[in-house]
C-alpha cells in the first residue's frame, strides 16, 4: 500500500438489531490494520448504506447482522449498490449465520461471510483482498 493510497471501507448494520459489538470490533481491527473505516452505526436501510458507500467512494462494504435477517438484508445491500451505480463495490458480511445460508449468500453476490470464531487475521486479509481486487479490476 502506497503512502497516499489508503483502503476505505464502510462498516454498517442493516436492519433492526442493535447488537453492534461485532461491527465495532471489526471496525477497530480494520483501523488498527491501517484501513480508513467509515462507520455508519446501527439500524440502516440497504439504500442508506449504498448511498453512503457511493459518496464515500469506499473500496468495500462490511455488514453485520445478528438478528437472522441476513438472507434478506445482505443481498438487498448488493442490489442497492448496483442500483446506485456501484455494482463493483464488494460486500462482505458477518454474524450468526448458519452453514447452509453461506452458500446462498455467496451465490447472491456476497464476497465473504464470517461467523463467530473466524480469526480476525482471516477477516482483515479478506477485506484487503476484496479492496485490492476492486482497485485493480
Amino acid at each position, binding site marked *: 500500500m502506497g503512502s497516499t493510497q489508503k483502503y*476505505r471501507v464502510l462498516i454498517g448494520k442493516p436492519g433492526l438489531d442493535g447488537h453492534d459489538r461485532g461491527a465495532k470490533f471489526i471496525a477497530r481491527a480494520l483501523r488498527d490494520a491501517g*484501513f480508513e473505516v467509515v462507520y*455508519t452505526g446501527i439500524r440502516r436501510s440497504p*439504500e442508506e448504506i449504498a448511498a453512503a458507500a457511493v459518496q*464515500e*467512494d469506499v473500496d468495500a462494504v462490511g455488514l453485520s447482522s445478528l438478528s437472522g435477517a441476513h438472507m434478506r438484508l445482505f443481498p438487498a445491500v448488493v442490489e442497492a449498490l448496483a442500483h446506485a451505480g456501484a455494482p463493483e463495490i464488494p460486500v462482505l458480511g458477518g454474524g450468526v449465520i448458519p452453514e447452509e445460508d453461506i452458500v446462498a449468500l455467496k451465490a447472491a453476490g456476497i464476497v465473504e461471510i464470517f461467523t463467530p470464531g473466524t480469526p480476525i487475521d482471516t477477516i482483515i486479509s479478506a477485506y484487503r483482498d476484496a479492496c485490492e481486487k476492486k482497485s485493480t479490476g
Partner: protein
Amino acid sequence: MTIDRLLEGLRQRDPRAIGRAISLVENGDESAEIILSSLDENLVSQATILGITGPPGAGKSTLTNEIIAKLRHQEERIGIIAIDPSSPISGGAILGDRIRMMQHATDKDVVMRSMATRGRLGGLCATAGAAVRIMASCGCSTIIIETVGVGQSEMDIIRLADITLLVMAPGLGDEIQAMKAGLLEVADILVVNKADCKGADILAMDLEAVTRKGSATPTQVCMTVATEGKGVTELLDRIDKLDSEHRDSGERQKRRRGAHNQEVLDWCLEILRPQLLDKIIKRKLSVLGDPRLKAKKILEEK
C-alpha cells in the same frame, strides 16, 4: 471510470462521480489536475463555506445534522466534509461523523464526505480545499467543514471557511480551556451547545468575557440544544447576517485570498517534499553537523 465519463458525471452532479473525484484528488492521482481545472469557478466563488470546530463530544455532528435539516427546508444543496484523525501508529482511522447524519443519507442534495487527516501536515488543507471546490462546482451552495479543533492542521483547515463556529458544551472544562486553545481567535460565532445542561449559562457568560470585543469582526455567542433543534434557526440567522456583512465589507474576500495563498503554499510543499527528500538521500549526509545549515545549502543549489 474513464476521465471523460468522470467529468461528464461531475457535470451531471452524479454522486458516484463526486465521490470518485474527491478520492482521486485525495490520493494525489495524475487526473486531479484535469478534474480541478474543469470546475465551475463561478459556483465556487458564490458558495458559503462554514467551518464547525470544537472539542470531541461538544455536539458538532449533531448540530451539523440540524443545520443540514434547516437548510434543506430552504431547498439548498449542501456539502459536508467531516474530518477525523488518522492513527499515527497504524495509519488507519474511524470516520464516525456519519452516524449522527444518517437521516440525510438518501437525500440526493446532501453530499457528504468523511476524510481522515492521514498525518499530513498541511496537505489536508489542500485536499479539503479541493473537496470544497468539487462540491461547490456540483451545486452545493453551502459547504460545511467539520473538524475536531485541536492541533495546527485542523486550525489550517478552518482557515478555508468563510464563517467559523466554535462549538462548546458545559462540563468539558472551564473557560481557561477555551482561552488557551487559541481557537477563539479564529471563531466568528461561539456556540454553547447542550444549553439545557447545568453550567451552560456560566459557560456562555465566561465566553462573553473573552470574545473579541471592539474588533472589526467581533465574536458572538449563541446557545443551542442540537438534539432538539433548539436555537438552530437563530444560529443560522446570525450566520446569514454575518456572511452578508462580510461580503459587503470585503472581509470575505480577504479571507478567501488568505486561504487561497495558504492552499497554494500547501501544494508547493506537497510537490517539493518528495523532490527534496530525494536530494537529501542522494547526498548521503553525515549524521553530524547542523541540519538547518544543510537544509539551507540544499535549497540554495539550483
